[in-house]
């Protein structure tokens, strides 16, 4: 019942928002949805809800974790959205080219936001590969109008890329789903995860491998693994910052969950070596590509997008390594989402004041908008894995696990790439937040500062203290996906 509520509540609210004409009510509805959704999730932590729809929809630890992350981020983003929407002018001028552009009507925007949440909740809860596919594709569709919020030709281009590339990718995942059916033709109801894992000895390994490859490429496209990440920079940089935060912090995770599910089947079917090696390879490759593009990046939101590619790579790497690294990878996921959410929201504030995304045009954030400046600087260190932020713990744990397993080259590459990326990001971000500012101090609205601050504080706490309930869930997940 609760699960149905979790999925349907945002969907209904979204449809309702579409027809509401009074902005205040719409925004209140958004906030209400976010809060009640979060409350429902919190309830799930206390009592794990019963499966519904013949077990097609059920909440396991992984789903719970992913949903919580999405929920928290959505809450932050929706609070931010209220500040953002009330600030955003009806028509604004492009600073480079001088023409005017409008925004997508607010009702569509808010409706899609909530539909997006619903789709993500469905992704997290679906225990059936077919349903999973439908849900992941649905997230693409719900988020496309969000990216095209600014009716600007560059956002349009980004959205087009997003929709087409992701659809093609996810199409491949559909092919993978079919092949998975073939591989498990001996099993009745052969797309249920529990059925597959329970009868794993009946799965044909060769077909399973092919299925895994297609899943990897398919959902990997959406997750942003290089070289399939190509939609990501454009979409993240062109969409409003709160949408970027959601894309980076929630959507990518959901696609990753798709890969994790098939990885889980591989683990149970004894094919973990195959899937792990591929995950490790794609993880490192993504990090490398991200490093290259971060160093050469002139647009700070694009840089953040590439940083997401990097962190998705780390997640894949962690899961690929197996054992404790899965724990770390999941922990990394939480912290990355929080941190990236914080950074994107801060980036939104920067754009609101500086009206540009070119990093060399931004100077002296700390002097002009101090709170955002602090967030931006703290975000740099958080995302680079400095203690006492949470990413430090996870990165170190992944490193140590790889080391304990004897993957010395992986360790070396991992650390080298992290250092390279840090150097690149630090150069850009510090030069933005520091420096002289001619315009004097300006006032930031509380609604646009509070959400990223809270996200930052959570990841700060998580860097020093992992609560027991979280440890338990993480341990459960690492048993599910742990290849050892």
């Amino acid at each position: 019942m609760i699960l149905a509520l979790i999925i349907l509540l945002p969907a209904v609210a979204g449809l309702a928002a579409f027809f509401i004409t009074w902005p205040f009510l719409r925004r209140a509805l958004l906030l209400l949805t976010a809060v009640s959704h979060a409350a429902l999730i919190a309830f799930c932590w206390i009592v794990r809800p019963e499966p519904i729809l013949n077990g097609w929809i059920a909440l396991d630890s992984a789903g719970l974790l992913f949903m919580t992350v999405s929920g928290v981020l959505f809450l932050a983003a929706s609070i931010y959205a209220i500040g953002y929407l009330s600030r955003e002018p009806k028509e604004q001028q492009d600073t480079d080219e001088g023409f005017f552009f409008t925004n997508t009507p607010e009702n569509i925007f808010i409706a899609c936001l909530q539909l997006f949440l619903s789709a993500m909740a469905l992704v997290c809860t679906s225990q059936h590969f077919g349903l999973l596919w439908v849900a992941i594709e649905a997230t693409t569709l719900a988020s496309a109008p969000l990216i095209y919020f600014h009716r600007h030709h560059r956002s349009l281009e980004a959205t087009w890329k997003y929709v087409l590339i992701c659809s093609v990718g996810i199409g491949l995942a559909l092919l993978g789903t079919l092949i998975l059916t073939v591989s498990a033709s001996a099993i009745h109801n052969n797309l249920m995860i529990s059925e597959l894992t329970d009868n794993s000895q009946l799965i044909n390994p060769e077909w399973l491998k092919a299925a895994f490859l297609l899943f990897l490429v398919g959902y990997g496209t959406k997750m942003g693994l290089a070289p399939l990440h190509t939609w990501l920079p454009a979409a993240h940089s062109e969409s409003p910052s709160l949408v970027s935060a959601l894309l980076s912090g929630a959507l990518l995770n959901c696609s990753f969950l798709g890969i994790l599910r098939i990885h889980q089947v591989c683990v149970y079917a004894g094919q973990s070596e195959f899937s792990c090696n591929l995950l490790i390879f794609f993880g490192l490759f993504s990090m490398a590509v991200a490093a290259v593009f971060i160093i050469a990046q002139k647009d700070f939101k694009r840089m953040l997008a590439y940083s997401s590619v990097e962190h998705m790579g780390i997640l894949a790497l962690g899961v690929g390594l197996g054992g404790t690294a899965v724990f770390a990878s999941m922990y990394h996921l939480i912290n990355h989402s929080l941190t990236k959410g914080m950074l994107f929201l801060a980036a939104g504030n920067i754009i609101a004041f500086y009206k540009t995304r070119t990093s060399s045009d931004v100077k002296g954030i700390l002097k002009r908008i101090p709170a955002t400046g602090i967030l931006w600087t703290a975000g740099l260190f958080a995302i680079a894995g400095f203690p006492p932020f949470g990413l430090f713990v996870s990165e170190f744990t992944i490193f140590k696990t790889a080391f304990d397993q004897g993957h010395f080259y992986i360790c070396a590459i991992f650390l080298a790439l992290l250092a390279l990326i840090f150097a690149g990001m630090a150069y850009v971000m510090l030069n933005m937040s520091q420096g002289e500012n001619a315009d004097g101090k300006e006032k930031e609205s509380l609604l646009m500062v509070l959400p990223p601050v809270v996200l930052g504080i959570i990841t700060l706490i998580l860097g020093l203290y992992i609560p027991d309930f979280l440890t338990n869930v993480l341990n459960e997940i690492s048993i599910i996906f742990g290849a050892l």
Partner: protein
Amino acid sequence: MNIADSIMILLLLTNLGLLASSRLNACIKTVAIQGLIVGLLPLVATKGPLTIYSFLLALLIITVKGIVFPYLLKYTLRSVDVRREIEPFIGYGASIIIGIVALICSFWLSMHIPFPDKILSATAPAVAFFTIFCGLFLIVSRVKALTQVMGYIVFENGIYIFGSALFIEQSFLVELGIILDVFVVVFIMGIMMFHISRAFDHIDTDKLGEK
């Protein structure tokens, strides 16, 4: 030579037609035909006797892929008022040659993959691969957004053919979900094409970044 085989040959021909045609209108028609044929597959590819479920599915697919999509594409084409040529990166002659090579590869591949015993017809997997290839090829090698949408539809068809070829039965809910998703994708792309044409005066996606 049963029905299934002949359907496969027809599908194959539509693909080659797509590769060769230079007019958008013709392409849309070919896609429509392909959609109709694909819609017949649920009827052919059931393991047991025909069920209502199969009929419903067939009807749905024929409606969406054979009628709604072509209509949508046509409508777009009319309203955005673009030049009616396809403007490929790769010429039609070359496209056909590449297509034939891909066709050969598809057949070779389908012969070397150890499929389960029961398949719809010997040619079915090969045609499925070829259709998928054609769809992707259209997306990659053609300039216009419209052609890319068609490419996507063809690609989707190919996956569906593959599913049918191996008698994979999804539950109705999932099938419905898939069709709905595909529908919305095409719908959204259609809407976006309006915007693209308004913003750029053309729908050439390789020039999206310019201006």
